[in-house]
């Protein structure tokens, strides 16, 4: 930067602060474009960060989109190439991202939550882009005009690579906005930003923060909007089950300990979140006892005798279908795997084995998989027909992702989702709340 005009000080530039540690001005990388505009407006000459190499036009194949994907892309373009697109699982969010990269030709950094998705995105990009792509994560550090990085890889290395891209694509963008790892997005200069999710955050502060980091939600469709057309239709069946007398007695005792503290807290701090409660509870012995009771209640409910019988019966009934069983925790997943000799997909199973398992599932060599969380998000699971939800802990978002696993359209396909819910327990409310995510909200908000 040279010859600052008289009366112009960098202290007035957007986002700029004086860093006394190094005696220089400093701004977050995400404010790069705004700062550039300001410098041009006040007539300061400056040297640009060297041009980012664009992807090679000839290397791209044409990426066709469905009508609603085109509409989503237009909404993003109209929003100055910044914003979140919310589409249900299985509706082709990755394809949309590929189209954005192909049509803009910008150097692009795609962030994905897990190493499994890193591989999956790399495969998808390679299918339509015939040049080498970069990778940051899983021990690899390789840069290219199109680079895929895990959230963790980006968090750790964005200070080295954040100036290399003009387009930032964030898969499962709802993970940001809560403060955790948000710096990864703030340390990138990319002005064009696209967030993808099936479940945009409903919490207003997270949504506002995400809007700052990536942009507002510019397009949203739910499972209800696409089911029966672009997505398979499905039947949701809730099986209400009872606890055995011993389970009921144990549950009631634990519930008494928990509710005593929880109700008191809620009376004192109406509208407080679970996080607030948990933070408060860890400070007192009674609070800690309440939290332990809460965890034990969940353990009692995770795989009750009635659920055990129901799982057996459902697996027998759908022996010839492709079935996904979702549990609340890994222990339950392994119990089911041992009892029914069905393959578990958990975080303990290596990536390579998981890929093999999904291939076998696709080929029909395996017809049932049981998982706690691995199948929840993003992973491209071959078309399944039946889901059995034995338990879950993460609410609406998790439920939408899980149901989405069944909705890849097929000729005459009608999927079935079974939810196992224990009567007169916290599961009744949980099940009611998580189903909200599947309700039609609005169509194509532009």
């Amino acid at each position, binding site marked *: 930067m040279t010859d600052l005009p008289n009366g112009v000080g960098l202290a007035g530039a957007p986002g700029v602060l004086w860093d006394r*540690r190094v005696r220089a001005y400093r701004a977050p990388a995400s404010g790069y474009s705004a700062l550039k505009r300001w410098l041009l407006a006040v007539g300061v000459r400056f040297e640009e960060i060297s041009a980012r190499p664009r992807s090679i036009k000839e290397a791209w194949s044409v990426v066709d989109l469905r009508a609603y994907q085109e509409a989503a892309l237009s909404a993003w373009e109209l929003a100055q190439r910044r914003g979140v697109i919310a589409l249900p699982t299985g509706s082709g969010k990755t394809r949309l991202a590929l189209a954005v990269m192909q049509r803009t030709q910008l150097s692009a950094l795609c962030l994905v939550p897990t190493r499994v998705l890193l591989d999956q995105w790399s495969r998808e990009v390679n299918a339509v882009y015939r040049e080498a792509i970069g990778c940051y994560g899983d021990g690899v550090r390789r840069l290219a005009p199109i680079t895929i990085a895990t959230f963790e890889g980006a968090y750790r290395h964005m*200070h080295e690579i954040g100036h290399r891209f003009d387009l930032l694509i964030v898969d499962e963008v709802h993970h940001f906005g809560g403060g955790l790892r948000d*710096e990864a997005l*703030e340390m990138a200069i990319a002005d064009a930003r696209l967030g993808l999710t099936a479940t945009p955050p409903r919490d207003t502060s997270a949504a506002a923060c995400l809007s700052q980091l990536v942009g507002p939600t510019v397009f949203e469709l739910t499972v209800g909007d696409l089911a029966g057309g672009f997505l398979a239709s499905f039947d949701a069946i809730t099986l209400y089950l009872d606890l055995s007398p011993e389970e009921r007695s144990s549950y009631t005792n634990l519930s008494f300990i928990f509710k005593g503290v929880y109700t008191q807290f809620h009376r004192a701090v109406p509208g407080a979140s679970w996080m607030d409660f948990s933070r408060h509870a860890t400070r007192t012995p009674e609070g800690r006892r309440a939290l332990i009771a809460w965890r034990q209640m969940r353990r009692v409910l995770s795989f009750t005798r009635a659920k055990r019988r129901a799982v057996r019966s459902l697996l027998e009934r759908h022996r010839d279908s492709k079935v996904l069983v979702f549990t609340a925790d890994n222990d339950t997943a392994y119990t089911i795997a041992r*009892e029914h*000799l069905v*393959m578990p997909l958990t975080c303990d199973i290596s990536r390579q084995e998981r890929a093999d398992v999904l291939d076998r599932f696709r080929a029909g*060599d*395996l017809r*049932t998989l049981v998982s706690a969380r691995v199948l929840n998000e993003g992973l491209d699971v071959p078309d399944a027909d039946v889901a059995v939800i034995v338990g879950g802990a993460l609410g609406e978002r998790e439920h939408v992702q899980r149901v989405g696993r069944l909705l890849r359209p097929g000729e005459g396909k009608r999927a079935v989702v079974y939810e196992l819910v224990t009567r007169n327990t916290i599961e009744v409310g949980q099940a009611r709340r998580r189903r909200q995510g599947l309700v039609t909200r609005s169509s194509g908000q532009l």
Partner: protein
Amino acid sequence: MLPDRLVNYSVAGTLVVPHFLAEHDHQWLRSLLEEHERFVGRPRRELDARLRDPLPCECPPGKLKLAIDVLTRLGRSRRNAAVIPPRRARALVFVEATRRPETGTAVLSKVATSLGVSVAELRDSLFADLPAEQLVSARGQSLSAVELALRSNLALVQRLLFHAAMLRITVEGNTRFLVRHAKWRGLICTLAERSGHEGASLEISGPFALFRNTRLYGRALGELIPLLGWCARFRLRADCVLDGRHVALELATGDPIFPASAPRQYDSRIEERFGREFRRLAPEWDLLREPEPIAADGTLIFPDFALQHRSDPARRWLLEIVGFWTPDYVAKKLASYRKARVPQLILCLDEARNCAEADIPPGVLVVKFRRRVDPLAVLRAIGSATQAVAH
């Protein structure tokens, strides 16, 4: 890294007080180590089940969980007791179970026969690679109760610092070691104030900390803690945000924390030899290895030695041995010293680096060396410079 739920601390005013494991914890730590030893070679789940029950002696539950976690991480192994590689066992059993509508036992029996093992062995192999099934390793055996306590305390402090954005450290001795590691991890070190010859007062934070309270550097800040064990004296204060509260963590020399392995005292043999020979040849001089750092234009420089005459405090020279040479490198180094206003500086330049006379900036006392810095040459150079000033 330790999960937050295992971090034991209390808050007194705005100070966070870590609940360190101390001498009075050694008895139950020894019991824990004995239990651990009994389970070496057995699946981890058996040890976990045993440790869910109380130890033979009384112990604080929070501290016990912390020590178990630290011990578990140290004793982690991938060894398992599978007769058939678990991945192979899973592939065979689950595919067979899909293919044949028979009972689980029939499927296991068929696969076991084809592999030439018993059903029990096959069943045990299925998930033998899961963390709970892996065998407890013997690594924990060599630990003493004292070391386990120190390691647990280090893990506790590092987890607390995971929530910190900046450290203020007043430190004496081995500062270069500390600053070098901090810079290598991308942190910014500034000298908060000159604190005479007693040490340095450092502020260490990450670049992004300017904009907001960030956890981005918490791990890197935590890595500095075991290095402090090698500083003669230190006092540390870290601003943390714990459970939404702004609190400060304070540590000082003598806190029971596991130290890093010993840093090298010298960067090169040339430095080591010079130190040894100078002390022998010049008993009237004190030779201080790694004097206090000097702030120069936003950066810190570390002279290799300070030479201090015992009877005349004004005769104090800083000495830098430059083994690496390019005109730019030396010019930059000298510019830093000039900005820091270091008047009495001796630069020892390696002749083998082909440094031309013209490249040496004026006004610097230069002693050239070849393979060895001659202490007598250094003393002669000091003598001539002192005489020149007197004239």
